[in-house]
C-alpha cells in the first residue's frame, strides 16, 4: 500500500500538465482509500493482518516488517481519507494566486504530497523500530519542503523550527530504540531462549527486555517519550506547532495536523506502552499531568487567539493532551481493565477524529485565506449570508471539534474522560474543564464570523477576474472540489459519531491487547 503512491509519483515525474498531475493524484488517493478499507475489513482481533516480514539487515536484527492491527487500520484509513480530501481541495486552486504559474512547481507539490502519503502509511504500518524511524524521519523532511516551499509569512523560519524540533526529537527517540534493541540482545525471552538484538516490535513486546531494570527502563522511556512528545506535541514542547501551522499552506497544515501529529500519539500506543510496560506504569503520573496541562494550556491559548488558523492549531495541543491523559490513565493497574480499555479506545478514536475534523478546519481556514487574504476572525462577519456552504461546514466542523454528540469528537472525548476518571479522578475533572473552554472559543468564533452584519475583507468582496481556462465563480463560497473535500471529512466524522461501533469494534480488541501488555 505504501508503495503505490511512490509508483504513481515515479510515473508522474515526466508529466508537466497540471490536469494530468492532479488527475493522477486524485485517482491514486481514491485507490488508497479503497485499499485502506479493504485492508481494514480483513483485520481480526489478536494478530496482524497483511503481515509482511523480510529480513533487511539481519546482522542487527533489522527487518522489513509491516502489518495492520485494530489500532493502525483506522489510522491508515484516516490518513488516506485526509490525503484524498487534500487532493480534491487542491484541484481548483487558482494557479496565479498560488504562485504556481510554473508547472514544475505544481509537479513538485504533487510529488511531495504523494511521498508524504507513502511514508505516513508506512509509519502506521511499520512493525519494526528502524522502519518506523525511517518513515518518521522522511515525513519530517518532506513536510519541511512543503512548508518552506509553499508557505506564507515567515515560512523559512517556521519550517526550520519545525524541522529542528522534530528531527532532534527523532534522534533522541532513536537512542531509545537502540537501548531497547541492545537490551533485548542481553535478555532472555519469555520461553527462556535468547532473543538476540532485534528491532522487531512484536518480538520486543513479547520479550519485555527491560523488565525489572528500573533506571535503564526509565531512561529508555524518557528518550522515546521526549521524541514522541515533541511530535505529538505535548506541553512544554509544543511551541513549534503554531508557527508551522500558521505559515504552512492549507493542505500542508491539514496533513501536518491530521497525520503527522498522530505519529507521536501512535508511537505512544504502539511502542511506549507495550514495549516498556513497567516504566510506563511508573511514569503514568507524569503522562497524566503533562496531558492535563496540555489540555488546559492549549484550550486557554486557543481562547486568546485572533487568527482562525492559530486557534485551530492550539486546539490540536488541547486534543492531543486528552490522548496523553487517557494513555497515562491506562498505566494505572489499580483501575478496572474495562475502564482502561475504554480510555485507550477513546484515545485511538480521538486520533482518527482529530485527524478528519482538524483537517477539515484547516482546509476551511485556508479557504478564508485564499478568498480574503486573511484568516483573522475579526475580519469576517455575517458569512452565513454570502457563504452558506462555508458556514454550514465550518459550524459542523467546529461542533465536531468541541465534541458535539452525533459527531466523532464526542465518542472520543466521552470514552477518554469516562475511561480515565476511575484511575485519576481529579486530573480528569480538571481536563473536563477544557471542554467548556473549547466550547466557548468555538462558539465565540462562530458567532463572530457567521452571525451579524455582512462584512468581508475587500479581496473577497471584489468580483473576481477571469483567469486561465476556468472562469472563477462569482461567489466567494466553497467550490465543488472544496465542498467535496470538507464534506468527505465531515461525513466520516458523522459516521463515527452516529455509529461508533464502526471503529470501536475494531479498536477495542487491540486496545485490550495494549492494556494487557501494559499491565504485565
Amino acid at each position, binding site marked *: 500500500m505504501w508503495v503505490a503512491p511512490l509508483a504513481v509519483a515515479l510515473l508522474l515525474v515526466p508529466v508537466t500538465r497540471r490536469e494530468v498531475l492532479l488527475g493522477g493524484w486524485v485517482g491514486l488517493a481514491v485507490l488508497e482509500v479503497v485499499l485502506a478499507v479493504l485492508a481494514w475489513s480483513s483485520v481480526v482481533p489478536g494478530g496482524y493482518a497483511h503481515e509482511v516480514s523480510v529480513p533487511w539487515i539481519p546482522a542487527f536484527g533489522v527487518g522489513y516488517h509491516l502489518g495492520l492491527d485494530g489500532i493502525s487500520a483506522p489510522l491508515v484509513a484516516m490518513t488516506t481519507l485526509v490525503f484524498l480530501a487534500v487532493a480534491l481541495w487542491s484541484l481548483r486552486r487558482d494557479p496565479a494566486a498560488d504562485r504556481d504559474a510554473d508547472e514544475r512547481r505544481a509537479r513538485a507539490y504533487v510529488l511531495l504530497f504523494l511521498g508524504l502519503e507513502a511514508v505516513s502509511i508506512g509509519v502506521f504500518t511499520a512493525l519494526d523500530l528502524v522502519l518506523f524511524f525511517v518513515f518518521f524521519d522522511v515525513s519530517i523532511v518532506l513536510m519541511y519542503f512543503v512548508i518552506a516551499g509553499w508557505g506564507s509569512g515567515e515560512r523559512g523560519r517556521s519550517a526550520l523550527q519545525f524541522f529542528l524540533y522534530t528531527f532532534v526529537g527523532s534522534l533522541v527517540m532513536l537512542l531509545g530504540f537502540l537501548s531497547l534493541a541492545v537490551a533485548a540482545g542481553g535478555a532472555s525471552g519469555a520461553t527462556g531462549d535468547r532473543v538476540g538484538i532485534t528491532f522487531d516490535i512484536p518480538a520486543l513486546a513479547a520479550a519485555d527486555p527491560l523488565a525489572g531494570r528500573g533506571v535503564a527502563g526509565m531512561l529508555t522511556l524518557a528518550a522515546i517519550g521526549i521524541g514522541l512528545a515533541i511530535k505529538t506535541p505535548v506541553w512544554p514542547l509544543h511551541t513549534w506547532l503554531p508557527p508551522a501551522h500558521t505559515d504552512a499552506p492549507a493542505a500542508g497544515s491539514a496533513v501536518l495536523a491530521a497525520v503527522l501529529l498522530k505519529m507521536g500519539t501512535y508511537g505512544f500506543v504502539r511502542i511506549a506502552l507495550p514495549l516498556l510496560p513497567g516504566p510506563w506504569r511508573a511514569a503514568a503520573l507524569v503522562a497524566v499531568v503533562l496531558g492535563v496541562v496540555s489540555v488546559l494550556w492549549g484550550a486557554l491559548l486557543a481562547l486568546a487567539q485572533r487568527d482562525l488558523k492559530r486557534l485551530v492549531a492550539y486546539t490540536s495541543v488541547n486534543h492531543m493532551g486528552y490522548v496523553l491523559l487517557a494513555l497515562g490513565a491506562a498505566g494505572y493497574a489499580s483501575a478496572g481493565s474495562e475502564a482502561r480499555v475504554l480510555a485507550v479506545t477513546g484515545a485511538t478514536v480521538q486520533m482518527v477524529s482529530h485527524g478528519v475534523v482538524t483537517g477539515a478546519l484547516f482546509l476551511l481556514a485556508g479557504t478564508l485565506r485564499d478568498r480574503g487574504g486573511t484568516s483573522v476572525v475579526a475580519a469576517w462577519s*455575517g458569512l452565513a449570508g454570502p457563504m452558506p456552504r462555508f458556514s454550514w461546514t465550518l459550524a459542523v466542523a467546529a461542533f465536531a471539534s468541541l465534541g*458535539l454528540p452525533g459527531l466523532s469528537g464526542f465518542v472520543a472525548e466521552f470514552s477518554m474522560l469516562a475511561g480515565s*476518571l476511575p484511575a485519576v479522578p481529579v486530573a480528569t475533572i480538571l481536563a473536563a474543564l477544557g471542554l467548556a473552554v473549547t466550547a466557548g472559543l468555538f462558539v465565540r468564533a462562530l*458567532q463572530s464570523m457567521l452571525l451579524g452584519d455582512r462584512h468581508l475583507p475587500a479581496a473577497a468582496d471584489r468580483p473576481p477576474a477571469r483567469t486561465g481556462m476556468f472562469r472563477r465563480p462569482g461567489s466567494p463560497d466553497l467550490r465543488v472540489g472544496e465542498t467535496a473535500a470538507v464534506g468527505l471529512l465531515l461525513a466520516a466524522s458523522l459516521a463515527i459519531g452516529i455509529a461508533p461501533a464502526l471503529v470501536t469494534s475494531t479498536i477495542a480488541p487491540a486496545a485490550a491487547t495494549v492494556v494487557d501488555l501494559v499491565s504485565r
Partner: protein
Amino acid sequence: MTLLLALLLAVPVLAGLVLLTAFPRATGAPVVAAGLVAAVVSVVVAVELATGVGTRATPMLVVPLLGPLTFTYAVDGLAAVLVVTVTVIGALVLLAASGEQRLRRGRFVGMVLVFLGAMLATVTAATLPALLAPWEVMGAASWALIAFDRRDPAVGPAAGRAFLTTRTTDLGLYVATGAALAAGVPGLGLGALAAGDPAWHGLIAAGLVLAALGKSAQLPFSAWLSGAMLGPSPVSALLHSATMVAAGAVLLLRAGPLLAATGWAATLVAWVGALTAVVLGLVAACQRDLKQLLAASTCAQVGLMVLGAGVGASAGAAGLLVAHAAVKALLFLAAGGWLAVLRTRALPALRGAARRHPGIGVPFTVGAVALAGIPPLSLWWTKDAVLVGIPFGEGGLTVAGLLATALSAVGATRAAWFLWRPVRSPSIRRGAEQQTRRHVPLAITVAVGVLVVPAVALGGVAVAVGLVPRADAGELVTTGVVVVLAAAATWVLHSRPVRVRSALWGRAARVGRGWLGLAVVTGPAVGTPVTTLARWVERADASLARALPRAAAAVPALARGVERRGDRPIVVALARFAAGVRWLGDLARRPQTGQQHQYYAQGVIAIGTLGALAAVVVWAGVR
C-alpha cells in the same frame, strides 16, 4: 415495539436533517407540510407507544457503543407520558410557527425537528451515554434556534450564553458517567445508579445535579433563560415548556433513588428548587416585558418540579411538568401572536390586547389563570401533589412552596391585568387600532385553542385516574385560598396602585427586572478571569517559545567556540607542519642542480662520507 421506538427517535431527526442539509433556504407550504407531517407521525407513534406501557413488554432500543456499554432507549411509565407531551407540544409549536412568514423556512423547521428528536431521546434514555448524547445535541440545537435571526447583533451573545452555560454544566454528566463506570454500575443504567460502589455515589450525584440545574436554569444558572427570549416566540414556547428546561427536572426524577442514597444531594436539590421558585417568582412579579415575565415564571415552576424531585414526590413533579408544559406553551404562543401583530412585548404597550384579539386573549387568560394555580385548573392539582410530598419536618420547604405558589399567582395576574386593561389614552388606542386590521395568524389561534384543553383539564383527569396523587383536602383548600387571595390582591393593587415613594423600592424593582443582575455578574465572574488567564498563558507560552530556541541557540554558539578554540589551533598547527614539510622538501630539492660535475662532486662527498662511516664502524667493531 422496538421498531416504533426507533421510528419515534429517527423520524424527527432524519426529517430535520434532510430539511437542514437539502432545503435550508426553501420556504413556504411544502416545508411547513413536511415539518408537520413528521411531527404528526411522531405524535401518533408516541401515543401508540404510550398506550402499550404496562400491558406489553417495555420497548427497548439498544445501540452498542463498546462491550457492555450501550446507548439504550426505553419507554417506561415516565417516558411514555413525556414522549406524548413532547411530541404534541412540538407539533403545535410547529403549527403556530407556520403562522409567521419568516419561520416558514427549511432551516427553522429542520432545526426544531432535530431539537424535538433530541428531547425525545433524552426522555427515553435508559443509560448514561444514551442520555448524554441527545442532552448535548439539544444544547447545540438551542444555540442555533435562539440565534435564528442572525442579523440581529444581540442574538449572538444571548445564544452563546445559553449554550455555554448548559455546556459547562454538562461536564457534570461526563464526570458522572466516568464515576459510574468506576463504581461498576451495571451497563451504566440510569435506573441502577444507586447499585454501584457507594464510595462513588457522591461524585455521580454531584455531576448529575450540576448538569440538571444548569439545563433547568435553576439558581445560579438562570441567566441564560432570560437571553433565550431573543429567539422567535415558538422557540421560546418550545424551550420553556416541554423541552430543554424540563430535561433537567426529568433527569433529577430519574436519579431519585441515587439522590436519596447520598442524603445531601436530595436536600440540596430540594432547597435549590424551593429557592429558585421563590426568587424567580419575585423576578417574574416585577417584569414589564411579557416574555421575560413568562420566562422567569418558567424558572420558578421548574423550581417546584426540582423541589418535588428532591423530596421524592416524583409523580407529582411529573404531573406538574406535563401540566406546566401545556400552560406555558399556550402562554408563549399567544405572546408570540401579539408580538407578530403588535410588534411589542412590553406589558404597558400591550394594554387591552386581549380585548382586541379575543381569539388568543381568552385562551391566554385561561392559561394565566391556570398558571396562577387557581382551582380547579391543572396546575392547582399538580402543584399540590408536589407540595404534599414535602416531609413534615421540613417547615422551611413548605413555607417556600406556599410562597412560590402565591408569587406565581401574582405574576400571572399581573400579565392578565395588563392585557384586559381598557385603553384610555386616545393616542395609544389610535395607534393600536391602525394595527388591529392585522389579524393574529390563524395557525397560532388554532394551536393556542387546542392547548386550552390540557391547561384546564389535565390535572383533574390525571388525579382522577390516579396517575398523580391527590393531595389531602386541607392542603388543596389552603393553596386554593392563598392563590385566590394573592391573585385578587394583585388585581386590586394594579387597578389602584399604592405609590411607595422610596428610591430603594424602585432600585429593588429594577434589579428584579434585570434578573437580579445574574447575567451581568456571570460575565465578569466567569468570563473575565478565563480570558485574563488565557492572555496570561499566551504571554507565558510566548516566552516558552523563545526559551527553547534560545537554548537551541547554544548549539551554534558552541560550534563557533569549537571553531575558535579547538578547530583553529589545529588548523594553525597543521599549517605550520605543512610549512615545515615544504621547507624540508625545498631542502631536498636543492642538490638537484642538473649539472653533472656537481653530481660527481656530491657522489664523491657521499662515498667519502660513507667510507669514513664504514671505517669508523669497522674500527669500532674491532675495538
